[in-house]
């Protein structure tokens, strides 16, 4: 992807565009040849207007050399009309919803006359209705002759929107097939190289005491003044795995970070066993046995400049300290044990953390919290951006620890995960826990309906017909992509 967009040069091989081998030396070069990319993390300047963002780096000039705002505005308005989004060109990007911001990114690509549009996980931040709008835009674009490379780990989506599926695994292209000929299990099979239908559902056991008791917790966002978590009460027992299902923006991450002690709660109580955690900081909570595996691995989970081992030992470092100094042998031994325990594939504990794949990095983040010997483990989207095989391993690990008495509360936005890997599903929507479901009896639809997602079924029916032969949409499902 970085190569296609001209950010990096290939170390070997060649690119062929319209039958001619090309070399893309920079992003501007790629854009000039009609290749545009929309990154997972949106590349917009939120303090500038829609118009400025669309023309950033390619500003139109009047004869005097000043920016031709008039023409820019007209083109922007025309693009918005084409994309059927009633956004005024002068609106600041920070005032738009994430879905609308994505539309701006698409508009920017179109303004540059993109013929090939690469979308990297475009729906990861969108609600169901916004996904629908995006899919409509994609179909319109393909009808107009724009080729789209749609990168996703959301398999249902990929199958729905694509004409061709291309599966990558660990940097290798492993399969290509017409979308009409494939189904979900085909994609999964190609991605893991075997059938990975993990199913951890078990008969209800007698769980232990209540390990974590969340009682009427309310969290307000100090920036916006909005209440993001509203009077949530959850009990998690020893040995129980509770799944908190909800869309992005439902308040899940805010709840998790408040429980971990990063953000203050504005109402309610959190009890760890018998102990009220009010006034206890992050370090105190970790020491008491409550750890969080954060959602954003790169931003919150890993210290990039450190080795695998040093990342692993960071939260439990004080347990290796004698006479104010770190006892290296103790540290090395516990790290080595944990690497085996959580099955991290690394050449050595001294390897740089950034040299590992996403799944293995995630195992390090989980392992470092397990080294603190927690009673309760919170995980926020523990399988985000990792391949199916690693997902199964991570859940196997959690269920193994749960059997030993660990209480687990994890957040997910993938229904499949909620249904196959939990003892109890709680659905969260708009800051509240709205429903409790039993994964052994409930259906996919029940979970999604409770979360406020619209039913995607009828929408999927019309999908295949909408793609015309003038444009091609290819989908790339990539387990461990950049």
């Amino acid at each position: 992807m970085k190569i296609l967009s001209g950010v990096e040069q290939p170390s070997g091989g060649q690119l062929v565009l319209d039958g001619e081998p090309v070399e893309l030396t920079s992003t501007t070069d790629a854009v000039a040849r009609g290749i545009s990319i929309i990154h997972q993390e949106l590349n917009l300047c939120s303090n500038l207007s829609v118009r400025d963002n669309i023309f950033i780096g390619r500003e139109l000039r009047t004869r005097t050399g000043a920016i031709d705002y008039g023409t820019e505005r007209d083109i922007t308005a025309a693009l918005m009309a084409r994309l059927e989004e009633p956004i005024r060109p002068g609106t600041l990007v920070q005032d738009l919803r994430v879905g609308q911001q994505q539309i701006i990114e698409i508009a920017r690509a179109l303004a540059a006359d993109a013929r090939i549009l690469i979308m990297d996980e475009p729906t990861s931040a969108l609600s169901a209705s916004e996904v629908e709008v995006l899919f409509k835009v994609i179909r319109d674009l393909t009808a107009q002759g724009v080729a789209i490379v749609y990168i996703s780990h959301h398999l249902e989506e990929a199958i729905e929107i694509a004409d061709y599926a291309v599966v990558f695994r660990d940097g290798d292209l492993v399969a290509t097939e017409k979308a009409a000929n494939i189904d979900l299990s085909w994609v999964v099979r190609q991605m893991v190289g075997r059938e990975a239908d993990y199913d951890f559902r078990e008969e209800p056991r007698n769980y232990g005491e209540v390990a974590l008791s969340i009682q009427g917790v309310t969290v307000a966002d100090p920036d916006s003044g909005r209440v993001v978590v509203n009077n949530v009460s959850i009990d998690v027992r020893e040995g129980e795995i509770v799944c908190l299902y909800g869309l992005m923006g439902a308040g899940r991450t805010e709840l998790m970070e408040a429980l971990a002690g990063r953000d203050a709660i504005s109402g309610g109580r959190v009890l760890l066993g018998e102990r009220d955690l009010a006034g206890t900081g992050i370090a105190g909570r970790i020491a008491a046995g409550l750890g969080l595996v954060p959602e954003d691995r790169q931003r919150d989970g890993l210290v990039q400049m450190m080795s695998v081992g040093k990342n692993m030992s960071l939260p439990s470092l004080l347990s290796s300290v004698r006479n104010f100094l770190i006892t290296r042998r103790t540290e090395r031994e516990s790290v080595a044990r944990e690497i085996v325990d959580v099955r991290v594939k690394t050449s050595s504990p001294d390897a740089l953390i950034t040299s590992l794949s996403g799944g293995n990095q995630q195992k390090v983040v989980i392992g470092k919290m397990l080294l603190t010997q927690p009673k309760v483990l919170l995980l926020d989207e523990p399988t985000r951006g990792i391949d199916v095989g690693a997902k199964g391993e991570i859940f196997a690990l959690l269920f193994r620890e749960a059997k030993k008495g660990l209480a687990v509360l994890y957040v997910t936005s993938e229904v499949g995960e909620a249904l196959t890997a939990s003892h109890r599903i709680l659905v969260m929507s708009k800051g509240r826990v709205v429903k409790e479901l039993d994964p052994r009896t409930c259906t996919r639809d029940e979970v999604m309906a409770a979360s406020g997602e619209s039913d995607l079924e009828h929408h999927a029916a019309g999908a295949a017909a909408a793609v015309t032969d003038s444009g091609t949409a290819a989908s790339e499902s990539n387990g461990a992509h950049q």
Partner: protein
Amino acid sequence: MSTTTTTPAPAGAGPAAAAKSPGRSLNLNAVLVEGRALIALIIIIAIFALLSDNYLTAGNLTTITKQVAFNAIIALGMLMVILNGGIDLSVGSAVGLTGAVAGNLFRGVDLPLTDAVMFPKLWVIVILSVAVGMLVGWLNGLLIARLNLAPFIVTLGMLYVARGLTQVLLNGQNITNELSGDPVLGNTGFFTIFASRPLGLPLSAWVMILFAVVFSIILTRTPFGRWLYATGSNERAAQLSGVPVKRVQTRIYVLSGLCAGVVGILQVANISSSTADLGQFYELNAIAAVVIGGAALSGGRGSVRGTIIGAFVIGFLANGLVIVGVSPFWQQVITGAVIILAVAVDQIQQIVQRRRNARRAVANARQANRESAAASG
């Protein structure tokens, strides 16, 4: 207790120690970066030794070492701050303020409400003065850590505040004669101790060695050191791992202030006077030493060994330029160019390293492809 620091004997002893760092394949790049500073040091020494017979004499080496020591001690404090991703511009002023406080304590303190004047004992003077340096650092740390103010702005403001207070305390007059103390008052011995040369090396050099060893142990063997590297590389991740990031941040500025305070005392003893411009621009030399020593201004990367070498590079260069008679104006141009060259080489080295990694990965993948093809065919 094993020491990991290379004691910076002026040439010779360094290269071997820096080259072999057992069990540190991870820090290959760091070793390269330090190696580069070391190569620069050797080149500088070689050039000036050829140009002047007076360069590599025992007398001149002692002079250099004394000057380097002041900068190196400050730079060690600066290293702590830079590892955290911060910067401390106030250290030069803290040196001046420490000196002014010490001078005033020698002159005696008028006790309020009485006619009495108090003359503290020598050790009280020294401790109080250094404490003032630490207080400056603590204020920096408090404002930066608790109020989330930008280190650059806070310490820039403190640079003015501390320098201004220095001038207030000295009121336009240097304090010189009182520093010798008076047997009657029981505050003698300042120069005997702080301008002494145990085993022929100036005391400041011994302090530098002591600080280098202690800071090196702090950085490599204590949780505080690990926490410091972690917060410098990714503060959010460190915080969620239970690292007390605010406490770490406050303490490093106190440590930086401590270094400034110690240098303040040593420098007053060295020039036998407490003056208003003492320590001016020390912060810039210290930053240069840390950067030449391979530290990243964005935090998370840097070492005691590199910083000490960096301080020696600056010291040997400045001294050599004087000895061969380069004009003071050109001295500045050359020193500045060397600093920029150091970071540019660092960057180029990283680019080359990345390319080499990519090429190696491709070669490995091709090899694997051939093997799997051979196996299946």
